[in-house]
């Protein structure tokens, strides 16, 4: 019995020590996650512009949201962005990952180059693309002009602006997804390719029936990450277009930012934030149902 008590006591002492180790994260979590989340939820029922006292308004923020055409527009724009961005992201990342996985020379250099935009500041990248897309002095239009093709209004035509932003976002983020695909590709057992080879499957069939199904979990992760990242679309429209032309690039996050920090509607911005979180959840659940397969089958 005495031995058992000693062991239990030592266990409890060890537990107390462990609390000290998790304390920094608990403090961080409380300060930067739990408190803002609870405070945002309180804001949903208030009108507040930071400097004046909060005013309780019940469900008025939701009432406003239901009749707010710009809210629906921002959701639609974000979904448009995702529809262009996600397939583009997956296809480009997979193509480049396959290329890098094929034993091409200078693989490390290419991997570093593709990853470079990921670690560069989003604002810096966006300003760079502003120069590339510029209608009058942009590199792209200069090339088109030299080839005798009329200039494209990359950022000032409502039909072209969002695809232009999607291309830019793909360029910025593709590096991280290449790495994920490379990990997925390197985890596919070689035996599967050997078996397929013995069955007479060519390169395309091996890709279609071995590589793609085996990469499905990676594709799911990439689609989910891209979706969540896509719903956070902010810097690009903020710097490049201000949400225009004709509100065609007004993303959800930009709209929330405008409401909160341009117009001082903290309560309404919090309401928008919570509703967007539900939209993201819905879209991600839907995506997972559509894409996720049982690899073993």
């Amino acid at each position, binding site marked *: 019995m005495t031995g058992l008590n000693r062991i239990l006591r030592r266990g409890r002492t060890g537990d107390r020590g462990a609390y000290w180790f998790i304390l920094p994260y608990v403090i961080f979590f409380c300060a930067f996650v739990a408190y803002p989340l609870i405070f945002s939820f309180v804001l949903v029922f208030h009108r507040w512009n930071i400097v004046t006292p909060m005013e309780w308004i019940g469900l008025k923020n939701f009432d406003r949201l239901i009749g707010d055409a710009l809210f629906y527009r921002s959701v639609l724009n974000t979904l448009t962005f995702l529809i262009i961005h996600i397939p583009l992201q997956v296809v480009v990342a997979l193509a480049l990952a396959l290329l890098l996985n094929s034993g091409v020379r200078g693989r490390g250099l290419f991997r570093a180059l593709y990853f470079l935009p990921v670690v560069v500041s989003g604002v810096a990248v966006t300003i760079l693309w502003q120069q590339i897309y510029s209608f009058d*002095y942009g590199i792209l239009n200069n090339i088109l002009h030299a080839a005798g093709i009329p200039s494209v209004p990359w950022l000032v035509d409502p039909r072209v602006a969002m695809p232009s932003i999607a291309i830019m976002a793909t360029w910025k983020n593709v590096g991280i997804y290449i790495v994920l695909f490379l990990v997925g590709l390197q985890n596919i057992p070689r035996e599967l390719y050997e078996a397929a080879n013995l069955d007479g499957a060519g390169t395309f069939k091996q890709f279609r029936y071995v590589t793609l199904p085996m990469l499905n979990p990676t594709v799911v992760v990439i689609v989910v990450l891209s979706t969540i990242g896509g719903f956070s679309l902010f810097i690009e429209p903020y710097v490049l277009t*201000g949400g225009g*032309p004709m509100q065609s690039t007004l993303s959800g996050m930009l709209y929330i930012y405008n409401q909160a920090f341009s*117009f001082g509607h903290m309560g309404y911005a919090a309401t928008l934030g919570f509703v967007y979180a539900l939209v993201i959840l819905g879209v991600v659940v839907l995506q997972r149902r559509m894409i996720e397969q049982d690899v073993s089958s």
Partner: protein
Amino acid sequence: MDVNSCVRLFLPAALCAAALVAGCNEREGSSPRAPRPVVLTYWPAPNPQEILLADTLVRVWNRLHPEILVEMQPIPVSISTEEVLLAAIAGKTTPDVCSNIWPGALHDYTQSGGLVRLDAFPDFDSVMSLRTPRELLERFRVADGHFYEVPWKTNPLMMFYNRRLFHEAGVLDVPSTYGGYLAAAEKVVTHRYEGGTPDVWMGDRDVRPIWWQRLFDFYPFYIAASGGRTLLAAGQPSFGDSSAAGVFEFFRQCYGRKYFPRTYFQGGDPFLLEKKATHFSGPWEVAAIRKFAPQMDFGVAPVPVPDDHHGPVYTYGDYKDISIFSTTTHPKEAWEFVKFLVTAQHDLLLLRICDQIPVRGDLLENPLFAAYFRENPAMTGFARQAVYTRGMDDAPDLKEIFDAIAQEYESCAVYGRVSARDAIREAVGRTNLIVEWNR
């Protein structure tokens, strides 16, 4: 050593160290010393000219008033001064004095109790009456009947034009009406074509739907067309008339006939590069021309008005004023410093260093300023126009209202998707909702 042992060992040592430091500070505070000077913090606008002006004035002040030291720190750079000041009010980190107060944001500052009431100082009226005409000053009185800002400087929005480009295109008279402007634009734009697009545009504006961009096109044109009205009357939108629709239609013609490009330039200011014939801007542009395009032969005129317009041409004044924040512990000293900033001598410095117009009634009569205007004839037009300027309404929703206008302006004027009347009707409708929501 486990974690508990570490805590047991270091905590008493840390407490001892803290006590020792506190004790040292106490001893230091109790030693007899000469009375410390009052220290004020002053935030000017963060542009190089105003920093230079502020630095010059603060040096003079500190030499003359060693008992009230002023520390100058440019407003932290951000998207806008207003965002910085609101954040500072929320965090109670505002300076004592700031000289970049935009009247459009004053409502938020006063509602939060962030500013000191200036007319509570006994000499406020006498100081103001020496500098600013009463009628103009009254426009800065807020809804509660008091003054919270000293009108400091105004930048009347006017039309700059390139004489050489006009001359080459055969434009003999400076356009003063919409009809005249469009006729001149036709000549300028068709005069030189290169690769299917005009080599020289009549003008351009940033087409992005950013609310404050409309302060430099729609708003001055609306004030001019309406004979000096602003957007709201008794807190309700009052711009649903033919003046506002006329302004939208005018810009719709400018974009529709390709006198203005549907883009924004990034390879430098096209007016300075002599790639456009007109430019709507304030007096700060004069310094920019002097510095970057000294060869340019330019003139300044009031913004165009409807063809049937009568009477003086008003415009947006783009005022920036001086306020004292309520976080100050030395309001009297801060007020003395504010008075120092707006003396005639220092208004002359404002002109000389910043090329911006002080809100004074005697600019063109006072001999003190005569030499400056003789040396800078382009600035005389701004000084004359300063009398015919309007600022912003005292309302909480201005940015959102301008955002609604910017969205409709983009739909109608830039892309021609809706008629001017429908766009204005929509903007007024949205403004009504905004006003109602914010009550």
